């Protein structure tokens, strides 16, 4: 098959296979493998040509494959509370039972943690380091309770990047090539730009993008935004979506986009198809979430301080005023009819601000919103009946608003 005929979807699958096969192969050859948190400064790992696997991606795949309970039961058996993050429970269990139908991954020789998505990952990665007796490279990103990031926090991060480079040099026995870092930084920025441009095409009505696809492409944004493959994928995806948009096509061939909503929070992986089909049944397209921006990690090439700042301004690490403004912007830019909030049992950092954000966004924009109970990978915390009722309620409110001509 000629490369030009490859669709982005096919390429996505190829890259996923390549990513995991590469890591398994490396391990088999005795090369070190790392595990890292999703929004990590991958630029540093990429510069050193490290094989990095992302447990959050892996846990999500296990959840989507409906085999989470095998791992969750084991984790709870060894003392993990059912109340902590289900990704963590699955991943900690995987270190004991290292086989999943969804995908096998090699156990790590070093673990890398960046806490900009939550403090939970700090605890989770500590446990990995202690249990597997491997070194931990940790980047602490202080919570930004002020609207803007304080300078001393940026300085602190920059210092940690330098310490992490030293730690990675010691671990790999390689000298860190700053020229190469510059190249990786450039490529990473370019990939992020395509990712952002692609997801921004959903601003058009109808949106050429089905938001649930975004959940799938995101996995590659996590693990390949600093290399040529990732860059190529997101450019291709953009071009496809652009062509779709130019042709006036909506998200699905079998149904029309009637409502445009935002999904707040992580997907419900074990119930992905239920959550998707229920929305589609009512003509609801999830056109955006907070994720497009989360992986739009942008800075000036060769500016390590700028890169430090870029890694601490993630939505989850910023204050409520910022979060509210950001959501309001999404409502306007994406011409949203409603917001669906996922009260995710796994993610306390998202949950305990969600009520207030929801009230404020409703007040600022006037669009209806609803919330449902679920979990990113624990199938037990979701009720299909509750979900459908809430979605239906949202539709009724959106209809009322449309009828009122707003």
């Amino acid at each position, binding site marked *: 098959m000629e490369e030009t005929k490859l669709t982005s979807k096919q390429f996505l699958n190829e890259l996923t296979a390549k990513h995991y096969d590469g890591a398994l192969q490396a391990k088999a050859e005795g090369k070190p493998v790392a595990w890292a948190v999703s929004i990590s400064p991958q630029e540093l790992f990429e510069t050193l040509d490290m094989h990095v696997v992302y447990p959050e991606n892996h846990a999500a795949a296990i959840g989507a494959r409906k085999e989470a309970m095998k791992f969750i*039961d084991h984790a709870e058996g060894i003392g993990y509370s059912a109340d902590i993050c289900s990704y963590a429970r699955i991943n900690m269990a995987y270190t004991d039972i290292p086989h999943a139908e969804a995908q096998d991954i090699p156990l790590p020789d070093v673990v890398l943690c960046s806490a900009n998505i939550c403090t939970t990952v700090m605890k989770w990665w500590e446990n990995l380091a202690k249990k597997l007796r491997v070194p931990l490279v940790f980047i602490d990103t202080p919570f930004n309770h002020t609207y803007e990031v304080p300078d001393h926090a940026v300085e602190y991060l920059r210092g940690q990047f330098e310490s992490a480079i030293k730690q990675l040099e010691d671990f790999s026995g390689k000298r860190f090539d700053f020229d190469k870092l510059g190249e990786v930084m450039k490529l990473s920025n370019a990939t992020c730009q395509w990712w952002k441009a692609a997801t921004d095409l959903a601003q058009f009505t109808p949106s050429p993008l089905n938001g649930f696809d975004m959940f799938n492409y995101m996995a590659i944004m996590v693990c390949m935004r600093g290399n040529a493959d990732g860059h190529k994928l997101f450019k291709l995806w953009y071009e496809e979506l652009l062509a779709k948009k130019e042709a006036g096509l909506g998200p699905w061939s079998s149904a029309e986009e009637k409502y445009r909503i935002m999904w707040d929070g992580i997907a419900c992986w074990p119930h992905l198809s239920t959550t998707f089909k229920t929305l589609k049944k009512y003509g609801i397209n999830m056109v955006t979430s907070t994720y497009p921006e989360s992986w739009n990690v942008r800075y000036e090439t060769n500016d390590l301080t700028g890169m430090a700042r870029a890694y601490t301004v993630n939505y989850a690490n910023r204050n409520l005023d910022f979060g509210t403004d950001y959501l309001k912007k999404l409502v306007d830019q994406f011409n949203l009819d409603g917001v669906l909030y996922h009260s995710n049992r796994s993610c306390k950092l998202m949950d305990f601000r969600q009520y207030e954000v929801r009230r404020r966004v409703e007040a600022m924009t006037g669009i209806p919103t609803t919330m449902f109970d679920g979990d990113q990978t624990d199938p037990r915390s979701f*009720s299909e009946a509750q979900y459908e009722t809430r979605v239906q309620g949202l539709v009724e409110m959106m209809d009322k608003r449309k009828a009122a001509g707003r």
Partner: protein
Amino acid sequence: MFLGIDIGSSSSKVALMNDKKELVATAVVNKGTGTDGVHSALEQAFLKAGITKEDVQFSVVTGYGRVTYKDADKQITELTCHAKGVAYLIPGARTIVDIGGQDAKVIKLNEKGEMINFGMNEKCAAGTGRFLEVMARVLGCGLGDLSDLAQKSDKTVSISSVCTVFAESEVISQLATGETPANVARGAHVSVSKRVAGMCNRVGVEPTVVMTGGVALNADMVRCLSNELSSPVTAAPNCQAVGAIGASVAAYETFMARREQ
């Protein structure tokens, strides 16, 4: 004569043991703490044994009602009593699973039949008898009918919710989409078994596994638990009275130890 009394949340149990450590009589009354259930059970047991209250040399009370019951010589927990009761009835047992109305327990015994570790469910009702009661209600059958019903199943309906309220709506929608009550009943048993198995894993399971409490009368439940644990599970004889029997053993042992001193 040595008396053991177990006052639970929904039933009262009594056991009598003679000075040769032989079980003489047991009685179970389905009225728990705060009722006259314990008096009825005592009357029944005394009648069966042909003795009066005055013949009791030492008595031990256990169960949730143990703290408020004042007429016994000593009170100890139902965990220790279940351990003693099972060790008496089934020597060599190493793991006990007791599923009661409000809580479920797993008790680990050493080779001498002494309790060395235990686990109990958290506040949530999943994995307890209460969960089965809710399921029986949704299925429109009695709690005692669940076992027969489940044994007619041809597959297991998955009930994934941990929350009893969610599970209830899950089951209702499954029945609405045509699942048979038999398959749902089996699903409920598997669901409770999974929760209990999780608790067992935290404590560590060793054979022989013995099940006590009223839920042990549910043969299908015993089989489901056995599957989840990948280990044979034996239902204790006189399963509802095991705590009371253990209390009578404790009464016997305490009395003998004191006499020796």
